[in-house]
Structures are given as structure tokens and as C-alpha cells.
């Protein structure tokens, strides 16, 4: 096995260790990871064993609540022209049913499953950002409950869960109902993304040593792909909710056709999120199926690699199918054909998984226990949903079926078969891990059959109801259309389903005993690490992983792990800590110190939710105060991070020593920051799409951009910011006497330059007479600038934070991580600003040559930074690799880039002189040139550390 990090795999042979463990080691481990002792500590807890269970519990609460709404709807629809629910109430209820099921149940439920299970499956003490998970959970719970309660005041949104404008714009939805949806979804997005970051970094960086990607449990694969999909897809819903809220609050016409907006823009943005969302929900559930089915069949998953590939393929293809929700909007034939083909293609990987499950069941011998029943039942239902999915991917058929009850049937088959049944299988399968008693098998069988029958009785007739012409989202229907009987049947089925859930709740109350002295344990004989004996600290010691099914393949594993014969058998420093490993081969890299319980994240979550909710009722002052308090709490929480331990390296067992501190690309913080920035970049990119899209609709309303001077000033300032962003951390790492202050000041100046660039952008556009309310151009340009301003604002807080750290003596070469991440953030913001500037000022209308020059220059510049950074980082990661070769590569690359940059700069200066009739103000040229030069110097500076490393 070749090494990824220079770690010697021979060291694994020292385990299990044979020495006797010191007296009191286990006691100390238990003390460090102890659970709540006082009542409020149940709330401040940040252990995944608690947060994970709360999280699953809250998601199931919302499942039940949204299910009750479904029963209300089915009661109303049982008879034609029934008077059980008034029209307005019904419209609110069906909107809430969809919204709560999708946003408050499905995504959080699978995310919760990940937070609860992943640390155990990966053999980590906890995921790398437990406090972030806790924050995500509390924001979700507080916000979700408040959002749901809007229903009791008649203030719930009533525009349907996909909230198509213009129905949801101010003209047609003047109440605050729609705002509840937009802002309510806002913090749910935040918590989903926080969870996704946690899961990605957790799966990649906190696996047990030796658990290389080919030994990664299938469920962890699914969660990894799931989280990556959230990172790509959720920005789209973030952007669409932001745009619609901006339109509602400030009258910026993104979706108003009369002023150059387009309602279809919403549909593109929403479904670019909304369709991957289905697979986002499905994949983790499929991962659970792929885990549970081998267990109930007592064999290994047939075609493990194919299933992994299939999940990856699902992830990719699902981003190319969004417009199949829009076959009836009058798209060009070419687009329709493409999306039809892609929609069919996405069912192939699903087929691979289904047949892999069937083959697994055939290879083993099925045990008909409750998880097994739910898994097989889910499989059957999901296949039926998939088949109707192929049907509606056939465009001509979709023209008939679209927006009819056929679709209602289809989507419930897919989601209930693909997610709810697997989730129940997972609950039955993994519950003994957390509960002292398992759920009753006898009840479980009843619940399964009731649910299975209830589901089919409810939704099978709906296919026909749809073909008989019943449109979805109707609060009532006229008699005499032959829909009456079918609707009665559906209602009966829905109540059977409801009864099954009720029985499950009763059984949970009978048997679910949390945090007892002892768990029911591995009653189904599962093969994963989660079934090793464990406590709140997770495993007593973290084993070396040698196979995909460690508990099955290594009979002594449980004994050795419990005896502390593997990695990290205690907590000798009195700290919560876990091993961070490399992403591919899971080689130990360093020891991460983990946070202790605290209340800042709880307050942060409450104030974040408060900010959004109070904003909804338009109490702006209170909302801003809540927002500021949230920022304060989060800054306070960040303040205590990045404190190195006293020892630079420690023995993590068997004499293997690893450092206790890392910065740069191998650290978990760096990964989290990069993922966060990808989210931001995606939002910006999609906003750029919105800009181009609206231009294509009404170019006649667009005005000419401000003259070139503003652009050159802006780029110059951003270049300064970029330089400072790179310079700050680099200065700190040089470890000279004044490094700290120079670094802090550089970061502060960088942030200030960003502020200046943003201000320039705003003022020049306003000077050019752009009115955000007047056209799609105004609206999207201001939206892009506002998004940039948001990042600039956060960057400014970070600049101040950097200076504060220096003032308190926390800026030293020994703890560069914070500065490095701030630098990364500022550099990204500068790049994003440049994208916004160039796009809005050069497209459309600029001459081809200016266009090419500016973008070409920026691309070369960006490539230069990125290239050098990458080369130096890789050189850094591969510490054992051949250093001169890396240096050579960096030098050659840098040289080439410098030549290209010089050329672009020269052309640009000439161009600036030629194009501007009034003559560019000397100041403008000065700033532009200084900025560009500063960029060059920055690049050289970046290269220097590599050169000096030799």
C-alpha cells in the first residue's frame, strides 16, 4: 500500500497492543466525555449521541405533524365539495404539508441519521464540528417550530411548496404568509448546509485509521455524496428565496415580466435545487438499505463497487434533470429532448441499486424481521415509483400527467418507498444502539403491513384519479367526475397509514429508553463499527480497519477495542479529542481537540432563528438586534478556537506520535472553509446565471454600464485585497518578531479594500442611473452586488477579529489556522467581487476585445494564484515527496503566468487610454496599475515560501 501522507503502514502492525492499560484510564475517558449532569446541560450538550438523537426525534416530530396535515387534507377530499376545511385553510395546509415534509422532515431526518451514526460507523470520537452540528440542530428546531406555528394563526404560506411567483409576489400574496415561507426556509438552509459541511469533513477526515475509501461503509459513501449534493444544490434555493424576498420587500423585479423579470427564472432556480433534492433525500436512505439488506440476508452486499458508482452517478446526473418539472412551460424542443433523456438516464443507477439489493437477498437468506420487511417493502414501492417516473420522463405522457394526481401518486411512491420505508427500517435496525430495549418485533410486523397496505391503498388509486383529470392542489372537486370513490379509498388508506404511525409512536413510548446504563446492542448481528461496545465517548479505542465488514471479519475486534488495545485508548490530557486522518487512505495525521459543552451556539441558534422570524413580521429593529446578538454569540464561540495544546505532538497509542495542531489543506478547518466558500461561489454563479437569463428576456430595458474607470478601480482594489489576503497568513508563517502585527494589519487592510471596492461598485452603478426597481438588469446587478456586500461584511468582521486576536496575543506562527482561513475567505471574496464586476460591466455590450482582455487577465491571474497555491499545498501535504521537483514546477508555472499577466496589463493600460474620450483620471489609472502590480507582487510572494523551503 503506497502512502498518502508519509505515514508508514507498517505501524498498524503494532495493534492490537499487548501492554496492560494504565489504571483509571477508562474512568478518565468517561469523565471527559460525560453526559449532562445538570438539567440545562441537556441543552448545551454537544455530543453527537445527544444531538443526533434530538435531531432524529425532531425530524420525526415534523413527520408526524405534516402527516396530521395530510390526514386533514384527505378528510376534506374524501367527498366532493366537502366543507371540512375552508379553501384558504386547505391551501395553507397543503403548502405546509409539502414544505414541512421536504424541508423539516426529509432532509433533516437523513442529516440527523448521519450525525447520529457516522461517528460510530467511522470509529471517530465525534465528527469534527460537533458544536456546528448542535448549532444547526437548535436553529432547525427553534425555527422549524416557530414556522409550523404560523399555521395556527392563519399566517402559514399558501403558495404551494414550490412557491411559484408571481402568485407568491407582493401583488398576489400581500400578506406575510409567503415571507414566513421564505425566511422560514432561510435558516433551514443554513442548518442543512452546516450539517453537510460537518458530514463531508467528517467522512473524509475522521475515519478510523486504515479505513481507506474501499473500506468505507456504504452508508458513509451515501452520506458523503448526499452532503456534496447539498453543497451544490442548496445554494440554488438560497438564491431563489433571497431573490423572491428581495422582490417582495424592495420591489426588485426578478420575476415580474412587466419589468423585465421572468417567472420562469424562479422555476429554473427552484428546480435546480428541487430535483437533486429528491436524490438528496433518497441517497442516504438507499445507503441505509444497502447497509441493512446485507445484514438481514446475512451476507455481503453484492456489487458493492457498482452500488458506490451508481450513487455517484445519481449524484451527477441528478443535476441535469431539473427542467423535467417544466415540460409544460413551452421550452425549446432541444431542451425538452435533453431533459427527457437525462431524466431517463437517472433511473439507471437506481436500477443498479435495486438489483444489487435483490442479488444480495438471493445470495443470502432473508430474515423476515422488521427492518428486513421495511427494506423489502420500500424496495417494491420504490420500484413502482421509479416506473411511473420513467413514464413522466416521457414528454408526451407528461403533458397529460403533469400537475395531475398521477404526479401526486408518483412522487409519494418515490419518496415513501425511497425514503420513509428505509428510514423506518433504519430506525428499527439502529434503535438498539441508543435504546436499552429494542422495539417490539410483533408490533413492528403489524406496523409494517398496515403502512404498506395503507400506502398502496392511498396512492395506487391516485394514478387513476390523475388520468381521470383531477388536478393536484385542489381544495375540492365537483361531483360527477367519477373521482368520488377513488378519493374515498385514498382517504381510507391514508388513515391506515396514520394508524401505523400511531402504533409506532405508542411502541416508541413503550420501549424507547434512552441513555440507559446499557444498550440493547447488536440484536440483528450487524457488521459495522457502530455495533462495537461503546459509550458516550464512542469506542474505548479506535481500531485499525482491515475490511468492509470489520465486526464480521475480525472476531476479536470487540474485545480488543473495549480493552483499549488500539488508538487513543484514553484521554490523558483531560481533553475531548479525536484522530484526524487523511481523506483517501485514512492515515493518522494529527490529533484534533474537540469542543466541550457550551451555551454560545445555543444562543447563536436562537438569535439566528429569531433574526429570520422577527424579520418576517417586519419588526426591523428587533430583528437587527437579534441578528447582532447572533453574530456576537458566533464570534464568541469562534474566539476560543484555534488554541494549540501544550504538547506539539502526542503518542496516540502503540508509540505512534502525531502532531496536535495543523493548518493548511490537511486541517479540518481548511476543508470546512473551502466547502463554505463553494456554497458562496455557487450562489454567486447562479446569480450570474439569473443576470444573463433576464438579459435574454428583455434586453431593451437594459442600460449601458458605467465607464471603464469604475471597473479598473474596482479590480485594482480587489487586487489589493487579494494581495493582503495572501500576504497576511504568509507573513505570520515567516515567524519573525513583528509577523503577528503585520499579518493582522494586512488582513484588516484587505478587508478594508474589499469594502472600498464594494462601495465603488455601488456608487458607480448608481451614478450610471441604474435603478434596482426598474428592470431585470437593475434587480440582478443589485442582487449580485448585495451578495458580494454580504461577504464583504463578514470579511470586515473577520478583519476586526484578526486585529483583536493580535491585540490579545493570539497571533503567532504557532497558531496560523485562523489567519489562514480569514485570508482564504478574503481572497475568495476578492475573486467573487472580480467576477461580479466583470460580468455586470462587460456583459452584454462591451466590445469583444475589452471583454477578452479583462476576463483573460483575470483568469490568468486567478490561475496563477490558484496554481501556485495548489502546488505549494500539494508540496506541503506530500512532505516526503521530492521537494525540488515541486519547486521547479511552481517556478516554471509562475514564470509563464507572469509573462501573461504583464502582457495583459500592458494591453489594458493602452486600452484604457484609447477608449475613454475624457481621458481616464490619473487616479483611476494609478489605482488600476497599482492593483495589478500588487497582484503580481502577491504572486511572487506566494512563490517565495516554496523557493525558500529548499
Amino acid at each position: 500500500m503506497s502512502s498518502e501522507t508519509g505515514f508508514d503502514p507498517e505501524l498498524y502492525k503494532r495493534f492490537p497492543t499487548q501492554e496492560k492499560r494504565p489504571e483509571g484510564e477508562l474512568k478518565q475517558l468517561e469523565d471527559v466525555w460525560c453526559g449532562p449532569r445538570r438539567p440545562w446541560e441537556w441543552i448545551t450538550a454537544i455530543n453527537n449521541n445527544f444531538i443526533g438523537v434530538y435531531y432524529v426525534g425532531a425530524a420525526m416530530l415534523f413527520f408526524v405533524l405534516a402527516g396530521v396535515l395530510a390526514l386533514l387534507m384527505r378528510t376534506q377530499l374524501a367527498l366532493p365539495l366537502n366543507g371540512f376545511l375552508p379553501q384558504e385553510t386547505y391551501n395553507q395546509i397543503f403548502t405546509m404539508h409539502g414544505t414541512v415534509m421536504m424541508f423539516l422532515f426529509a432532509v433533516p431526518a437523513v442529516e440527523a441519521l448521519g450525525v447520529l451514526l457516522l461517528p460510530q460507523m467511522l470509529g471517530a470520537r465525534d465528527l469534527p464540528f460537533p458544536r456546528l452540528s448542535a448549532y444547526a440542530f437548535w436553529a432547525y428546531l427553534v425555527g422549524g417550530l416557530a414556522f409550523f406555528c404560523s399555521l395556527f394563526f392563519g399566517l402559514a404560506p399558501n403558495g404551494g411548496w414550490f412557491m411559484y411567483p408571481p402568485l407568491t409576489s407582493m401583488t398576489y400574496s400581500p400578506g406575510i404568509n409567503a415571507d414566513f415561507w421564505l425566511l422560514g426556509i432561510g435558516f433551514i438552509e443554513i442548518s442543512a448546509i452546516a450539517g453537510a459541511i460537518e458530514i463531508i469533513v467528517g467522512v473524509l477526515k475522521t475515519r478510523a485509521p486504515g479505513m481507506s475509501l474501499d473500506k468505507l461503509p456504504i452508508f458513509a459513501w451515501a452520506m458523503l455524496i448526499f452532503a456534496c449534493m447539498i453543497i451544490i444544490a442548496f445554494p440554488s434555493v438560497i438564491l431563489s428565496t433571497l431573490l423572491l424576498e428581495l422582490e417582495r420587500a424592495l420591489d426588485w423585479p426578478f420575476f415580474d415580466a412587466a419589468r423585465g423579470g421572468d417567472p420562469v427564472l424562479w422555476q429554473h432556480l427552484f428546480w435546480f435545487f428541487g430535483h437533486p433534492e429528491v436524490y438528496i433525500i433518497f441517497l442516504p436512505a438507499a445507503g441505509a438499505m444497502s447497509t441493512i439488506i446485507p445484514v438481514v440476508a446475512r451476507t455481503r452486499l453484492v456489487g458493492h463497487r457498482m452500488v458506490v458508482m451508481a450513487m455517484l452517478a445519481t449524484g451527477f446526473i441528478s443535476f441535469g434533470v431539473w427542467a423535467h418539472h417544466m415540460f409544460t412551460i413551452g421550452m425549446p424542443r432541444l431542451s425538452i429532448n435533453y431533459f427527457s433523456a437525462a431524466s431517463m438516464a437517472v433511473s439507471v443507477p437506481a436500477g443498479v441499486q435495486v438489483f444489487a439489493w435483490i442479488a444480495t437477498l438471493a445470495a443470502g437468506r432473508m430474515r423476515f424481521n422488521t427492518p428486513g420487511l421495511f427494506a423489502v417493502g420500500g424496495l417494491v414501492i420504490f420500484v413502482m415509483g421509479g416506473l411511473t417516473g420513467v413514464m413522466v420522463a416521457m414528454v408526451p405522457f407528461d403533458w397529460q400527467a403533469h400537475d395531475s394526481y398521477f404526479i401526486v401518486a408518483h412522487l409519494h411512491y418515490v419518496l415513501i418507498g425511497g425514503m420513509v420505508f428505509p428510514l423506518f427500517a433504519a430506525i428499527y435496525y439502529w434503535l438498539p444502539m441508543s435504546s436499552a430495549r429494542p422495539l417490539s418485533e410483533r408490533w413492528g410486523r403489524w406496523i409494517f403491513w398496515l403502512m404498506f397496505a395503507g400506502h398502496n391503498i392511498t396512492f395506487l388509486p391516485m394514478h387513476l384519479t390523475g388520468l381521470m383529470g383531477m388536478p393536484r392542489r385542489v381544495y375540492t372537486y365537483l361531483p360527477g367526475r367519477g373521482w368520488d370513490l377513488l378519493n374515498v379509498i385514498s382517504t381510507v388508506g391514508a388513515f391506515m397509514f396514520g394508524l401505523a404511525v400511531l402504533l409506532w409512536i405508542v411502541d416508541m413510548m413503550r420501549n424507547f429508553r434512552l441513555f440507559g446504563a446499557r444498550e440493547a446492542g447488536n440484536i440483528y448481528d450487524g457488521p459495522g463499527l457502530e455495533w462495537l461496545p461503546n459509550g458516550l465517548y464512542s469506542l474505548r479505542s479506535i481500531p485499525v480497519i482491515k475490511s468492509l465488514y470489520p465486526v464480521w471479519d475480525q472476531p476479536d475486534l470487540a474485545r480488543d477495542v473495549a480493552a483499549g488495545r488500539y488508538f487513543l485508548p484514553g484521554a490523558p490530557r483531560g481533553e475531548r479529542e479525536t484522530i484526524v486522518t487523511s481523506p483517501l487512505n485514512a492515515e493518522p495525521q494529527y490529533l484534533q481537540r474537540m469542543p466541550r459543552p457550551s451555551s454560545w451556539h445555543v444562543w447563536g441558534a436562537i438569535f439566528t432563528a429569531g433574526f429570520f422570524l422577527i424579520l418576517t413580521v417586519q419588526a426591523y429593529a428587533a430583528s437587527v438586534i437579534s441578528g447582532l446578538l447572533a453574530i456576537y454569540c458566533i464570534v464568541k464561540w469562534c474566539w476560543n478556537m484555534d488554541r494549540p495544546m501544550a504538547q506539539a505532538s502526542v503518542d496516540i497509542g502503540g508509540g505512534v506520535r502525531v502532531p496536535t495542531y495543523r493548518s493548511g489543506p490537511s486541517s479540518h478547518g481548511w476543508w470546512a472553509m473551502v466547502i463554505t466558500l463553494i456554497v458562496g461561489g455557487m450562489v454567486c454563479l447562479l446569480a450570474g446565471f439569473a443576470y444573463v437569463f433576464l438579459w435574454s428576456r428583455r434586453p431593451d430595458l437594459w442600460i449601458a454600464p458605467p465607464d471603464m474607470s469604475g471597473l479598473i478601480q474596482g479590480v485594482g482594489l480587489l487586487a489589493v485585497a487579494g494581495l493582503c489576503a495572501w500576504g497576511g497568513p504568509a507573513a505570520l508563517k515567516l515567524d519573525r518578531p513583528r509577523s503577528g502585527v503585520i499579518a493582522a494589519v494586512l488582513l484588516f487592510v484587505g478587508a478594508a479594500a474589499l469594502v472600498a471596492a464594494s462601495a465603488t461598485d455601488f456608487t458607480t452603478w448608481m451614478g450610471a442611473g441604474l435603478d434596482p426597481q426598474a428592470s431585470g438588469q437593475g434587480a440582478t446587478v443589485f442582487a449580485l452586488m448585495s451578495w458580494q456586500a454580504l461577504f464583504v461584511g463578514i470579511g470586515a468582521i473577520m478583519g476586526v477579529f484578526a486585529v483583536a486576536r493580535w491585540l490579545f496575543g493570539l497571533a503567532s506562527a504557532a497558531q496560523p489556522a485562523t489567519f489562514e482561513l480569514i485570508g482564504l475567505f478574503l481572497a475568495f471574496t476578492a475573486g467573487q467581487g472580480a467576477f461580479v464586476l466583470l460580468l455586470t460591466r462587460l456583459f452584454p455590450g462591451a466590445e469583444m476585445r475589452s471583454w477578452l482582455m479583462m476576463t483573460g487577465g483575470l483568469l490568468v491571474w486567478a490561475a496563477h494564484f490558484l496554481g501556485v497555491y495548489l502546488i505549494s499545498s500539494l508540496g506541503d501535504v506530500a512532505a516526503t515527496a521530492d521537494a525540488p521537483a515541486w519547486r521547479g514546477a511552481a517556478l516554471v508555472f509562475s514564470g509563464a503566468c507572469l509573462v501573461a499577466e504583464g502582457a495583459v496589463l500592458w494591453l489594458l493600460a493602452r486600452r484604457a487610454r484609447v477608449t475613454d474620450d475624457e481621458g481616464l483620471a490619473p487616479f483611476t489609472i494609478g489605482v488600476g496599475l497599482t492593483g495589478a502590480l500588487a497582484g503580481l507582487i502577491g504572486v511572487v510572494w506566494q512563490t517565495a515560501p516554496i523557493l525558500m523551503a529548499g
Partner: protein
Amino acid sequence: MTTETAPGLSGWPPPVLDPAGPFAGPIQVVAWVLFVMAAVVLAIVLLALGVALFGPRKWKRRVGGERLVWIGGLAFPVVVLSGLLIYGLATGARVAAEPKPGEMRVRVTGEMWWWRVAYLDADGREVVQDANEVHIPTGQTVVFELESADVIHSFWVPRLGGKVDMIPGRRNFLRLQADAPGTYGGQCAEYCGGPHALMGLVVVAHDPRAYAAWRARQAQAATAVVSAQAPLALIDQGRAVFAASGCGACHTIRGTEANGLAGPDLTHVGSRQTLGAGILPNNQGTMAGWISDSQGIKPGNRMPSYPVLTGQDLRAVAAYLESLK
């Protein structure tokens, strides 16, 4: 139980599977092909599952390997789906070809929660206005120009063809044709708020001669038809009440002073089959009920209830409007 409130959109067989024209027919064939495909595939999956769960060991060994995944999960779907895709795209191209010049055009504009209908001449000018009912000649392809005045609606007459959305700021086209005279029900298919559930319409197909006559009559200004149920005195009283109550601010009756544009054109309202956008039968009684209590019948719709009219005035207005044949 039958009513006349949903003409053409009722009962068995399901309208989607009961096509009445060349733009719905091929979709019905597609639907049946898909049903058969789904049934066969489901049978295969269930069979494989059955073998996997209960089959004899020898069979199970055949099923329980990666080969099944390659064949059943990969090769089989790729073949089936490729075939379906080609078939689907070809059918789609046939059903939704671009409008041809010279085809009859009708502009239907979705409004909350009714349909504005305008018949266009060869130059695209509106020559006849109507509401909630589209009359077409049989055996002839009609191009529907679909627009929206407020939010997104969707125009769907399942027996004649698929649905197309009506989107503000856009104009979509839908070609439909009815082979036989008759009434074909339709409904708004995109949720448009409030009483979306009660936004129906009817398409009435006549043979070409009858259609020409209908259109000629429709193009004329309003003429009240006197009858036993609507004696002249009552009609005159109704016309006066209509004018005095300000109905003309929202409704147009060509040939009178009423020229409002917010609501449906009432020039020939007495000849329509339904009231309230496809939800009530049309007679003096329902007309009176609708005028007096439209909010009770269709909550949230844009027409206010007029409970202030006296009994006789109400009856007179209803008689007047129903006389506009």
C-alpha cells in the same frame, strides 16, 4: 350521480385514455405502451425478488451474483429506456409541431380564476371576445395562443391533448383538434391560488357549418331574445338595473354602454353552457344566485356578491343576461 357542471370531464373512461382528436390520440398510445412496460418490468422485479426471498437454492444461486446487477440493473434498463426515449421524442415532435400559418387561432388568457377567450383573424387581430368557453370547428387544427394576465395557469383539456402553462410575459402555443362534435371539459392545472380548484372551462366542437353560424352570431352585438321566461318588460328592467348597479365597470356587453374589461365579456352570456368558469349550469336561477352570492359559491373570486338587489331587480338582471343568446 351526474351533473351538467362538468361537461365532457366526467366519469369513465378516464379522459386521458379517451382521446377525441389527433393530438391526444398518440399520447394515449404512449400511455398504454408505458403501462405495459411498467407492468412487465414490475413483474420481472417481483419475480426476481420472489426468487431471492423464497426460491429454491439452485435458482437463488443464479440470481444472487453481480451478473444480475449487470444485466438487470444496467443492460436491461439501458435497452428499454433507449427504445422508449426514441419513441417518446418522436411522438412528442409529432404532437407538438410548430403552428402552421393559416391555422385558426384562439387566444386564451388565464385570469384569476377564469379564462378570457378571443378569436383572432388571419392577421392576429381579436375579432370576437368570449369567456370560459372555446368553440372550435371539428376536423380542423386550432392553435391556442396561451397567455396569462396575472399568475401562472395551465390550460388542460385532457380529451383533446396535453396541457401547456400560461405564463405572464410569455406566449405559448398549443395545437388541438376535435374529431367529433361535442363538449370537452377542461380545468386549470397549475395551482393559481384561492379557488384554483373551481377554475374549469369547456371546449365545444361544432361541425364546421354550425361553427361558422355560431361565430357569425357571436360577432354581432348583444341582442336580447324575448321569451316567456324573459318578457320584454323584465329585460328592460334588467338592463336598467345592470347599468345602474355599475356592472358595466367590469363587464362588457357589446352594443351597450357596458365596456369594462376586468371581468368576462357578457355579450352572449346567455348562450354559454356554464357559469362561474365551468362550475355551475347556466340558467336564470343560477345566474341570480351567482350575482347575489358569488363569494359564497366560489370563495375568493374577483366578483363581489350583490346581496343588495331586491328580489325583482335580481330576477330582472338574471332574465336580461340570460336573454343575451
